[in-house]
């Protein structure tokens, strides 16, 4: 999906959360969203998912204004993995993932083989197939996070929005999740705290107090002065022996 964000403002009781955010995503792009705590990453993702109405500005999904799209049409094309989402219901892992098919079903159209296949594929993609019969509340935090991602994948979206998806994950699952996300052919926006993971994105946007500080390839954007000005850390980028770039941080400023 192609996404156009045009002059987005969001505010709550007059306090601005986002100010004049504009950028474009091309089809199949992996777009990183970085910024310190409270800089507006989650707010921006909620606007992109159509969950929050911007106070002005527009989000265009393949040219269609997101605010005008019916919720079900929107959810068939855009999936969001929230930063926090928990339940007290005693549902199983499979049932949680099956929720991802909700926008594809209707009161009269029942569960089909295609729905079951999408659920199985999503469970396998996050390596949770063996856990399908387990109850949600018996899972560890990282396992729950992987189920959330499977639910979003089961939606078979054209645009996948991930809010700090590597939270709670052990290092192996962080790497395999990032590899999974990199391998998806769809447009992806991913909010991250680990700037080295952001180096794997095609482009990154740096949010600072609700404004876009920079947008561009990670190697150019995450430079020494940006790290100091926005994140308040001293750090620099090094070339690894294999040619990829890597950030080293020395201390907080």
């Amino acid at each position, binding site marked *: 999906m192609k996404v156009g964000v045009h002059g987005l403002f969001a505010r709550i009781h007059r306090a601005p959360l986002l100010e004049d955010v504009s950028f474009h995503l091309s089809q199949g792009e992996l777009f990183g969203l970085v910024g310190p705590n409270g800089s507006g990453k989650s707010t921006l993702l909620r606007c992109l998912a159509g*969950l929050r109405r911007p106070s002005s500005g527009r989000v265009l999904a393949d040219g269609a204004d997101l605010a005008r799209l019916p*919720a079900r049409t929107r959810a068939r094309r855009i999936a969001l993995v*929230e930063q926090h989402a928990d339940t007290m219901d005693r549902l199983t892992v499979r*049932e949680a993932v099956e929720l991802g098919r*909700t926008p594809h079903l209707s009161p009269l159209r029942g569960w089909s083989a295609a729905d079951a296949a999408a659920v199985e594929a999503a469970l396998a993609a996050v390596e949770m197939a063996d856990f399908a019969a*387990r109850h949600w509340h018996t899972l560890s935090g990282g396992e729950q996070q992987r189920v959330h991602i499977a639910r979003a994948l089961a939606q078979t979206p054209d645009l996948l929005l991930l809010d700090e998806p590597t939270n709670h994950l052990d290092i192996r699952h962080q790497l395999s999740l990032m590899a999974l996300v990199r391998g998806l052919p769809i447009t992806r926006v991913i909010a991250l705290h680990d700037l080295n993971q952001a180096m794997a994105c095609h482009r990154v946007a740096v949010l600072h107090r609700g404004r876009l500080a920079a947008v561009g390839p990670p190697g150019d954007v995450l430079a020494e002065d940006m790290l100091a000005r926005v994140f308040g850390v001293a750090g620099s980028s090094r070339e690894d022996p294999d040619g990829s770039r890597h950030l080293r941080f020395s201390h907080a400023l």
Partner: protein
Amino acid sequence: MTTAVVPSRMPRGSAICLAPLVLAAAVLAGTAIGETRLPLATVLRTLANHLWGAGYPVDGIEAGIVWSYRLPRAIVAACCGAGLALTGVVLQALLRNPLADPYLMGLSAGASTGAVLVTVAGVGGGAISMSLGALTGALVAFGCVVALARAVGGGAGGGRETQAAAAIILAGIAGSQLFNALTAFTIARSANAEQARGIMFWLMGNLSGIRWEDVAACTLVSLVGVGLCLWHRRGLDAFAFGADSAASLGVNVPVLRGTLVTATAIMVGVLVSKVGAIGFVGLVVPHAMRFLVGTRHDRLVPASALAGAVFLVAADVVSRVLVPGQVLPIGVVTALVGAPAFALILVRGARR
């Protein structure tokens, strides 16, 4: 590995056939058992006479008890049980609160105010019945709670749908307190002891006044309620991870919540106006059914409606035969039976 137990799944077809049979058996039991002992043959013959004009000779008084008193009473009890349990399912799912019950939106408080204004304070001058007063009161209270919830929830920011759910619960508490105070005020000012006792009995649930005229309205609202909840079963499922998650799964949260909360409020309003505020069914039956059939609403909605109906018919029978010569308020029975049953379910559920 997979240690947690998945609720066993009954084949769908057999469940669909079984449900009406169970319900019919419960209603038949409700019709057959009572203070006056009647042989089952008399009951069956009376029913056959009325349903397809079989023409068996039966005693007129006994036939009257069966057909004019017990049967409508059992049917209305079943409708109330189904409607209250269903409302509990819907409110607990939509508001993400396990303590949500059918009277959350001020319905019982409003109904009591309406009933008291008509019977004690003489509003309407005898032209309107207590039941109509109760229905009006319930709906007025519901309107006040909704208006308050909108005023509180309006302008809320991030996680907006979640905040709206909290606003509804708080507004419901405030509205209930207000209308309960109005009821108490009216009783204190103008009721005598006899009237106050009558009102208290009615508030705890009273099916003794039920006749055939009440059956149509109760059946209609509960059938429409079941249909509407089944139609929106996937929307209700999608609330598992909260209202924001439901919105990201394509549920139009304000519309779905508005439709189902209003529909169930009208349903409960009608039921309360006929039989009073029977407690415990709407809170407990949904939780019990979640343990038995899981959290998916395609099973939970019919299972809760059926269980609520059977439970309330049974509670009505118990309330009539437990103390000889006296009919207990049915709310007392639902709580006496329901509380220990609920405790048992919780303990067993926690173990597995």
